[in-house]
Each structure stands twice: as C-alpha cells, then as structure tokens.
C-alpha cells in the first residue's frame, strides 16, 4: 500500500533524531543568559575542554528554581540572590557561587511621558512614573527581574499592583515578550542590559535610566543537591560550576560581546 509506505518513510526519515549526548548535564537557567547568546558562546568552549554537553532550559528564575526543586536539572544558574540563598538553605542546593553580573536598565519611548530620561536613580524614576501614571510594563512572572523590580518599587515606597490594569501592566511573560509588549504600547520596561542589547525589536526605544547601584544584577550558580535528588549528575555538574568560576570560564564570559558591548562581567571570588 503506497500510503503506508509513505508514512513509514516519513517517520524513518524523522526517526534519526538526536539522542542525549554521552556526557551531558541539564542547566535550569534564566532567559536573559540564553537569549543574549552567552551560552552559544561559552558552552562550546566548555564542551571542548571537558567533553561534557550542557543542555539549557531557559525559563524565568522563579520557574527555574521550582523546576530545580523538583530535581529536574543538575545546575541552577539564575539571578535572584535572596531566592538562591533560600534555595540552598532549604537543602535544595549544595552551595551558591557568584559568577558574573551586569545591570538592569529602564527603557522607554523617546516621548518620555514621565520625564525620567537621563536619570540614574531608580527610585526617583519609579516615583515619577507612578505620579504621572505613565505606562509601565512589568514581567509580573515571579522571575529574577520581576523580583528586582518589586524590590525597587518597595524602596520607593510605592505599591504599583493596585494600579494593575491601568498604567501598570503585568504581562506574566518572559523578558522578550514583555519588551515586545512595552515597545508595542509605548510603556517603560525594566530589563537586564544583556537582553536589551541583544533584543531585535527595539523600535524607537532607548535606555532612559541606568547606573543606579540598586540596579546591580548578580548571577549565581548552584549545584542541585544530589543527596536530595539522586538523578543529579553531581560530578559533571560540579565540573561545569568549577569551570565557570575558573580563570578560563571567567575570561570566556568577559570575552562575549554583542555589537561591541560586553554583556556580562565576570566577578567570581
């Protein structure tokens, strides 16, 4: 029968699918590190040095931590220091190490309805946004960026969630999706600099606020606790962590640029 031959041929063609590499680990990570292309730059270097393939699941920090709590991953690489320390303290992770940092920035439309362009104080900018009720688009997804944003609002003594749906818009989506929404409706967005630099749909948006020490964005790495999660590949996972904080790994991170700009700054101790 011609028909079944056809189907079988199609399936066979598709069957030759990739399998798990012989030595591989799974990293639960944030979208910013993946979407900015950092992994595409450093993982081949690591694989060449060790023969270990690193598979990355890129989700929001909140979901990455939950996935790791479910033992669905060997290494956690995110940017929400308090949540990370809690993760380790509660026994889900072995220990935490700083890897690199960059910073958050506020981006906005050239019309700048809140009049915050050129500022370097996050709390002042947020207060101006709230007072002028200028559109602000938030991740609203419990990610590292969202946690940071909420902390900044708190330090400005504002609770924007009461205005949710009016000038304060929560997308409940990733950084890129939120930026697409912000650009689409001309609302301010807080984003990590790496995602912004590598973002392809900037429209006429530009950075309006940067340089506040409060906007500092630290990335940390944690080995998921193998005594809680027997499936964790502790040896290879630890090898990846050791490499990240080693001189080789740190210089690989520092060497990654996009449009001539360095996106992540290594700062392992």
């Amino acid at each position: 029968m011609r028909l079944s031959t056809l189907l079988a041929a199609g399936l066979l063609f598709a069957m030759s699918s990739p399998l798990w590499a012989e030595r591989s680990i799974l990293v639960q990570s944030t979208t910013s590190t993946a979407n900015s292309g950092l992994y595409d730059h450093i993982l081949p270097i690591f694989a060449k040095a060790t023969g270990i393939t690193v598979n990355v699941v890129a989700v929001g920090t909140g979901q990455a931590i939950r996935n790791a709590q479910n033992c669905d991953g060997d290494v956690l690489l995110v940017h929400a220091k308090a949540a990370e320390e809690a993760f380790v303290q509660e026994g889900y992770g072995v220990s935490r190490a700083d890897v690199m940092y960059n910073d958050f920035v506020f981006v906005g439309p050239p019309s700048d309805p809140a009049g915050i362009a050129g500022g370097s104080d996050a709390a002042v900018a947020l207060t101006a946004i709230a007072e002028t009720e200028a559109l602000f688009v938030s991740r609203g997804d419990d990610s590292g960026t969202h946690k940071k944003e909420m902390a900044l609002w708190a330090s400005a003594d504002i609770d924007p969630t009461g205005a949710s749906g009016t000038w304060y818009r929560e997308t409940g989506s990733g950084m890129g999706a939120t930026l697409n929404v912000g650009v689409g409706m001309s609302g301010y967005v807080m984003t990590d600099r790496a995602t912004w630099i590598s973002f392809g749909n900037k429209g006429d948006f530009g950075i309006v606020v940067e340089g506040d020490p409060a906007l500092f964005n630290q990335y940390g790495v944690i080995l998921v606790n193998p005594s809680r999660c027997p499936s964790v590949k502790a040896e290879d996972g630890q090898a990846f962590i050791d490499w990240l904080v080693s001189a080789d790994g740190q210089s690989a991170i520092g060497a990654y640029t996009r449009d001539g700009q360095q996106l992540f700054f290594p700062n392992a101790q």
Partner: protein
Amino acid sequence: MQSISEALGLALGLVISADADLFEIVRLSLYVSLSATVLACAFGLPLGALLATTRFRGRGVALVIVNALMGLPPVVVGLFVYLYLSRSGPLGFLGLLYTPTAMIIAQTLLITPIVAALSRQVLEDMDREYAEQFRSFALGWVQRVQALVWDGRYALLTVALAGFGRAVAEVGAVIIVGGNIDHLTRVMTTAIALETSKGELALALALGMVLMTLALVVNALVYSVRATATRSAYA
C-alpha cells in the same frame, strides 16, 4: 509590512542554504509530531470505532467528554505531563523529562481525543450506510469494524492529518515538557517562540513560513494519495 518581506527573504535564504540548524529542528518537529500522530491513531482509532459501533449506557456522556477533550489547551496537557515526568513526579524515575519522548507523550495526549472524536464521526456515518448490509451478511463485530476502517481509510487519513496539524502547530505542551533545549528538544514552534522573545520578529516569521510550507507539503502529499486512490480502487 517591512518585516514580512524581510521574513520572506530570510525564509527563502534558510531553505536555499539548507541551514543545518533549521534542518535539525524541522526533522525533530516531524519526528515528534508524526510519532504522536501514529500513537494517537493507535489509541484514538479503536476508541472512535468502539464509540461508533457499540451502544452502551453512558455512551452519550462518553461522546460529550471525548468531544470536549478536543479543545484541551496544550499548556494544560504540558503541565499534566510535566507533573508526571518530573523527577519528583510518579514517573520521574524514567528520566523522560526534556526529551523528545516526553514531547511525543504530551502531543499524543493532546491529539488522541481529536482522532477519537473525528474517527467516531466518520465511522458512525459509514456504519449507518453499511449497517443493514453487514447484518444481512451476518458479520461479527470485528469483521464489521475492520471493513469500516478499511473502507473509511481515506477519510480517516484526513482525521490523522487534523491531529498532525494540531500537534505540529502547538507550542504550549512541548515547550514545558521539552524545555526548548537547543539541538535536543527545539522544534519549529518553540524556535518561533524563542525568536519572538528575542525580538527577532522577522526570523520568527520566517520560521513560521517554513512551518506553513511543511504543513502544506504534508497535506499535498496526502491529498494526492487520496486523489489517486479515488480514481483507482476507491470510490
């Protein structure tokens, strides 16, 4: 509009240059969704045949449930499968999360109700036509169902196609259970979602065009098989 023409150019470029990454995700898309379609047919067809040819108490309720499940949101299916396949879930020991197998499982669950409900309709209509003649032949249930499935094979192929279309186009389930891992579980739809989130709208659109073309080719193949068959042995 500019990004649409840009996307068209990108799509053509990707296809003409036989881009290795593109080829890989197209292959994985086909593998996952075709496998899910075959499995969904293996479960859904017998279920549809059973619902079409038997009368039992609660059949009405069963029909309503199966029909309603056609509208299962892919994200819900993805979450459901994630909770089972997660290392901390009941089937975690299988280590299937973030593998193509997990994606096949999720898509199979997603489209089995579609195959069951649509094949039930096809077979029941056909059964209505054949029922008296088959009773006259004194056929058993198995012979009857076999004949219905064989005579309805081209209509059922369209049913399978509907399932495949749904599977290959969904993103919600595969992105949760597959994780959109490069070179491992990245398929057309998750790649499109990724490029969209990176703001690379033209590239996302270009991938969408490739996916559309793929669906077009699969449909055209099935259509031509059916047309040839209609002219020859099947009428």
